[in-house]
């Protein structure tokens, strides 16, 4: 089970509270986690990554195990602790704006 922590506004859009738990088939990567997240919560499509290019939105970052994974390949394997559900995959909004 993969654990995902969404920022406040996306929890509202998805109508969830707390962490989201996802089943991910195959290798656990940013792409496969986000694919599973968007499949389960279709209203999140376009809010984390572009609909077409799947590029991460500029003011969002991805963290896990105290590392910033935002610039990793979307197909790179996420840490074992994320794949095993020990640690969550964090989607974080930039601290910016007013």
């Amino acid at each position: 089970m993969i654990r995902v922590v969404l920022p406040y506004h996306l929890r509202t859009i998805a109508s969830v509270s707390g962490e989201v738990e996802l089943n991910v088939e195959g290798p656990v990567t940013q792409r496969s986690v986000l694919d599973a997240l968007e499949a389960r919560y279709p209203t999140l499509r376009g809010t984390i990554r572009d609909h077409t290019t799947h590029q991460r939105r500029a003011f969002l970052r991805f963290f896990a195990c105290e590392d910033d994974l935002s610039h990793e390949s979307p197909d790179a394997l996420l840490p074992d602790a994320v794949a095993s559900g020990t640690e969550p995959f964090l989607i974080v909004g930039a601290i910016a704006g007013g």
Partner: protein
Amino acid sequence: MSAVRVLVGTRKGAFVLTADGSRKRWDISGPHFAGWEIYHAKGSPADPNRLYASQSSGWFGQMIQRSNDGGKTWEPVGNEFKYDGVPGTHMWFDGTQHPWEFKRVWQLEPSLTDPETVYAGVEDAAIFRTVDGGKSWQELPGLREHGSGPRWQPGAGGMCLHTILLDPSDPGRMFVAISAAGAFRTDDGGVSWRPINRGLKSNFMPEPEAEVGHCVHRIAMHPSRPGVLFMQKHWDVMRSDDAGDSWHEVSGNLPTDFGFPIDVHAHEPETIYVVPIKSDSEHYPPEGKLRVYRSRTGGNEWEPLTNGLPQSNCYVNVLRNAMAVDSLDSCGVYFGTTGGQVYASADSGDTWAPIVRDLPAVLSVEVQTLP
């Protein structure tokens, strides 16, 4: 007894203001979508309980929300606005060409007859349409591709298609306005478009009377006379009596002809309203006095409306989508400010009072007159 519902979009959420036909006591609900920018919210003329709202954020992009119960509850619908084909380029601030990039929806214009059909004006400028209640959106590419697109450029607020007017007498005819490109018209339901900017003069342009490039801030029409259009341009208040084929200036005795909104009285097609703003570099009312100006002659002769509006130390702006009218008798006029006030007049502008004073900056105001 009739009632009014005022839909207010702000920098930090949407608010729904309701009153009975006397328009004296108001209920305020919100914020809906708290923390998000609501560029526009509007109800379907064919089903007043069907509302649409454009919800956007620099972090999370664009959402479209739909309500089936007059704004009590909302559900997100489709948010994919994909330009048709390879979108090409437009002019950038430095004169170079820049790729078209979707940023947000500025205007949602529901069909006059079908609650499932809505037009969306977006930044970078283009028009989209849904026919399934917002689940999916398709561009009407004839506007962006009609030929002058490479000469369109962003205004200070972005290259936005901010106004869509539907002609109630001709389902094939629509008007749109884009900053900074100008006004455009289709006569075939959005398949083909042409610029309608003859008579506009913008001194900031290398060719002040060019076919496109004008920073049109807002256009308005009275539904009983769809061939008569009124325009608040970056500078100049303009009028067309031939559906945009030609324009002439009607700024007349306004203290300044810079401003953003313009609207038409619900029952008097020659009565129009603007809010003069000091200049393009000082976006606040002249002399710190918030004055709506009304012309009962379709322009040129204007009178200030001040009763109930602050007449000292007022330095708010009124943005282009932030004025609307109801269709009660007497006509109600409403506008919102960047200071978070929403003012209402239940007597065609003679007297004003704030409905609410301390909202986030107001981006849009729409009014529904309910049975």
